[in-house]
Each structure stands twice: as C-alpha cells, then as structure tokens.
C-alpha cells in the first residue's frame, strides 16, 4: 500500500525493519502485516489458527507465519525463538492480539472470573511475557544503533470507564501502565515502549463488542495501521545507509 503523504524517511525507516506482530490474521494486526510487508519490512506474525496463518503468509510474500497463543505461557518462548530465528533479530514488537472478555459484553457483576482471567492473560500477561522473552533481541538492536520499539495496542477504555467493558478495560489499563513503566526503565537501554490507542475500528472484535455499530462511523484498520507506523517511524532512529545495507544483506541469523 502506498500513501502519497509518506515521507521518504518513513519508507527508509520501515524497509528492512525486523518486526513481530501478534494477532496478525485479522483486524488491525492483519492491516499492520500487510502495510509492513508492502513497506519492505521483514515481518513475522502470530495467530492461533493454523489455516489462517498459512493463508496470510501466502498472501503477504516474504512474511513468516507462526502458529501460537500469546495467552499460553508455554507458547511464548517457542514464538520468540521462531521470530528471532526467522528474522535474524528483532527491531519492533507489536503486541496487538487482544481478548474482549465476555461476549456479549457484560456488567462486571455478571462477568465470569474465567472471562476476566482470559482477558488479563491475553492482553496483559501475554505481552509482558513476550516482551520479556524478546528483550535481549530488542536491546541488541538498540545497542547496534538500529533502534528498538515495543508497541502495545491500547484503547480509550484503558483510560475511561465504560459500563460493560470492565474485563477488557482493566486489562488494557494495566497494559497501558506497564508500557509507561517499562518505557522509563528501558530508556537507558534505548528501547522505546509505546502505548497507542488506535481508535474505534471496523474490525471483527469491534463487531463482537458493538454488533449494531454503523461501520461507516468506524475507522478502517488500514488507516489506523498507517497512523501507528507513522508513530513507530518517529520513535526509531533515522536509518543510515550502512544499516540499510546490512539489513538487506543479512538473510538469516547473524
């Protein structure tokens, strides 16, 4: 996808960037995989369903599909190993996979504990574990001058209190604060941790949450993906030509 407003800097910054996107087969995650791949980034993505993972990998030439569940403790290191192995390192982690909690949405008093736990495992503990497992690779990128960014997909529900959004909101509020603290702690390592609210989008998850919403009033995920990548490009150091070359010359581990 090309956008007339793209600055050459943005394209240069994304080309050769080594990226892992979670929840990469639908909604915002899929839009990010498509735009990153089209921008020349080297992309690995995770999702639970093998068939969809394989379909998205085929449709986005050069991308690497990983079957895994970020809410599962035992899946985290295999996901990290495959991503860093396939890409040879990691410059950008996008924790996008999210769980809505109970569907249809429910008042907290009617929310099953298991639904809250699943939202926390997917939206908070999963991104925590995956970021921790990938911190070595990310900090190495920062030391090498490539820059390193973790982007956690947040929500205005992380800030505002909306009835029936309790499980999702609590998990996203915790993720938002985790992002801020980690960003403070990692500043000396040169790793940036961003928490970004993409806005209300026309995605399968939004349809689950608000089935009667008018899609015309919602943001297209492609637009949100584009905006997010603008923010990421701004957080990364401008690539020098030598790093660009190294990024494209090194095919595998290195």
């Amino acid at each position, binding site marked *: 996808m090309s956008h007339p407003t793209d600055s050459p800097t943005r394209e240069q910054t994304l080309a050769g960037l080594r990226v892992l996107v979670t929840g990469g087969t639908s909604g915002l995650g899929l839009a990010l995989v498509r735009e990153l791949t089209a921008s020349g980034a080297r992309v690995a993505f995770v999702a639970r369903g093998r068939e969809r993972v394989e379909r998205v990998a085929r449709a986005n030439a050069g991308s690497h599909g990983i079957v895994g569940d970020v809410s599962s403790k035992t899946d985290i290191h295999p996901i990290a190993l495959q991503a860093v*192995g396939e890409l040879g390192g990691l410059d950008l982690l996008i924790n996008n996979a999210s769980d809505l909690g109970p569907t249809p949405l429910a008042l907290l008093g009617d929310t099953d504990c298991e639904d809250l736990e699943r939202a926390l495992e997917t939206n908070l503990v999963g991104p925590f574990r995956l970021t921790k497992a990938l911190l070595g*690779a990310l900090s190495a990128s920062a*030391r090498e001058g490539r820059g390193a960014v973790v982007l956690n997909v947040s929500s205005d529900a992380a800030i505002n209190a909306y009835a029936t959004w309790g499980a999702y909101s609590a998990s996203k509020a915790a993720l938002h604060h985790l992002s801020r603290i980690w960003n403070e702690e990692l500043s000396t390592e040169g790793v940036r941790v961003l928490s970004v609210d993409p806005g209300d989008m026309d995605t399968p998850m939004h349809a689950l949450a608000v089935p009667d919403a008018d899609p015309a009033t919602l943001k297209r995920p492609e637009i949100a993906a584009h905006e997010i990548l603008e923010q990421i490009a701004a957080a990364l150091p401008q690539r020098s030509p030598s790093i660009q070359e190294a990024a494209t010359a*090194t095919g*595998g581990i290195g």
Partner: protein
Amino acid sequence: MIAADHPIQRPPTAKLLTVDHEGRFAHLARDHFADLLRPGDLVVANDAATLPASLHGVHERTREAIEVRLAGWRGVVAGDVAHFEAVVFGAGDYHTRTEHRAPPPTLVPGDRLSLGPLSATVVTTLDHPRLVSLEFHGTADEIWAGLARHGRPIQYAHIAEPLALWDVWTVVAGPPVAFEPPSAGFILSWATIERLHQRGVSFATITLASGISSTGDDDLDRRLPLAEPYRIPEATAIAIRSARAEGRRIVAIGTSVVRALEHAGAGDGIVRAGEGVATNRIGSTSHLSVVDAILTGTHEPGTSHHDLLTAFVNAEMLRHIDAELDAHEYRTHEFGDSVFIERANGTAHPDRLRQGFGASRQSSLVIGSRATAEGCALPK
C-alpha cells in the same frame, strides 16, 4: 565440587570467587559483581539464546528410539537452518548419565530420522558411531517451528526436573543459535546491567553459537569445543577498539566470549566486526590479545572450559583456585557459582606483540559476508 541441581539462574546465595592480577583471593556474594568493575571497563557478554536442541524420535530403518542432540551447525551465519552436526543416543533420556547412555542403532548415510514434526536424513557419518551430519527437510520456517515445538533443552543427569527454555535463556538472549546456554551470563539481571551503566562501565554483546559441553564419550569430548560460528556487531567492535586504545579493560562474561574475541582479534589484537567460525583452542600456550579478565562458571578440571583458564593464570594458580573453590563449597555446572579472574601479571598487553602468537592461529574472520568456506568442520 558440589553439583548445582536446581535451574535457578540467580539464587540469592550464589557465590563469587575473585582472583586479582596478583593472585589474591576474595569471596563475594555474586550479585555484587558490578562492584568489582572499574569505571571505563567494557563488559562483553554472549547474547545467544539457547536452542531446544534435544530431539527425541525414531530411527526409521530399525524403528528404534533415539535421541538426537544437535551439536553444531556450519551454516547459521548464512541463515542455513537445515544442516547440523549432531550426537545421537539410543533409547533413554537425560536422567541417565551420558556416559551410560545406550548407543544408537548403526547409522549410515541416507537413514531417515523422524523427530516429532521434523524429519531428517543422515548425510554423512563422521568418524564416530554417535556423530553424524543431518539435513532437515522442509522450509526454514517449518524447521524453526519444529525445533521450537518439539525440541527440549539439552540437559544432564545432575538436574532431575525437565528444563524449560526460560530456564536456559539469559536475560540478554537474542539469536537462538547456541546448543547449550552461555551460562556465565546467568549472572546478568537488568538491574546488574543498569548498575554497570551507573558505575561508568560499558556493556556490549557478541553472538557465539555455544556448542555442547559433554557427549559422554571420551573420544568425542576430547574434540571439544567444536567449531562455533560467531558474529561481532559493528557497535561492539568499535567499543572494543576504543577501550583498548584508551587502555581500558575488556571483561568477558564466559569462555565463549573469550573464544570469539580472541579468534576475531588473532594476530594483531584488533577485533573487527563481522561473522566468523571460531576454531581456536585456548589454553596455557595461548596469549590473550584482547581479553583482560573473565567472569565464568566454576569448571571441572579436564574440560575445555577449565583449560581455557590457563590462558589467564598458570596451571599452579589454577590448582590453588580449584582448591579454594572446593574448600568453600562452591557449586559447579551451569547453574552453579562463579569465578572472576583477572589476567595474571606477566601476560599483560604490552608483552603481546613480542610473543609472536598468532602465527599458529589462522584467522577465519570473514567480514560482512557469509562465512561458509570454513564451515563447522569438527577439529580433527
């Protein structure tokens, strides 16, 4: 020494023996490591993540159970994940000491191995019944997925519970290329790294695909360490050059870092960025041209890791160190205690140019290109 039998990377009781350049000993709590360093020191760690390199499966021709332990790979620097050297055992698992493990069925080129979701063919048998080179079938992504899902960390009988990948990844673990953990790096926490920065100590990493440390077979163990591919980032090479130019110390975390830096700097002591394959064996006749001090685990006499320490101190001093570790009940193996050794007086940098080392060690460093020519051939 006592075997450390629990997979805890930073037990609060961990100990650290320090040996300064005049051979004086001191005992510290290990989490005080950062306080040993001087402003200006450059600490270099190995950021290799550990592969789950133990693969159980079946030898198709005989239908016998086998365990394959991946031990080396020639093509990792070029992104080739299909070809490995491997040590093969018969039925059984890590609970049996390696020296008591059953041999595999007779392996011949062309034999197929089914290893969970992975399948492989024996390409060549290397001059030992347990040692083969393997080719995995499938795409690179399929091989990574198969290793990630089916493999288990290589482990030994001194730890009873099965290891998970998080047990063997250091906090700086990045590229998954090591067959056993670069375990000296278990000393590192993010708080320790922050403390280094606060003290004016620099921190850098290299990546070296640490090979297996024990095969249970004397013939094979004598060949260790196997050739190990490595990569030195540009930023690390620059940091080392400026530290050396300014007379600041290079402190290696682990024997693998010593091996990589001394291989890359062989000849003139100038460490260049790029990829290479370390084939060097470091011991009492080696003259260190890059590294000034080492933080390492406690190693048993007779192992290649132990031999490497004789490049820092002479054999008599090393016997004193071993006795001191025994007397103070230090724990050994990958989750054990640590030793910090400054290079002894008499092997200091100013001497290195007069000693004519390097003639015996041919550098195979290939700068910025794919080092395949030298491969990972086992040292004969």
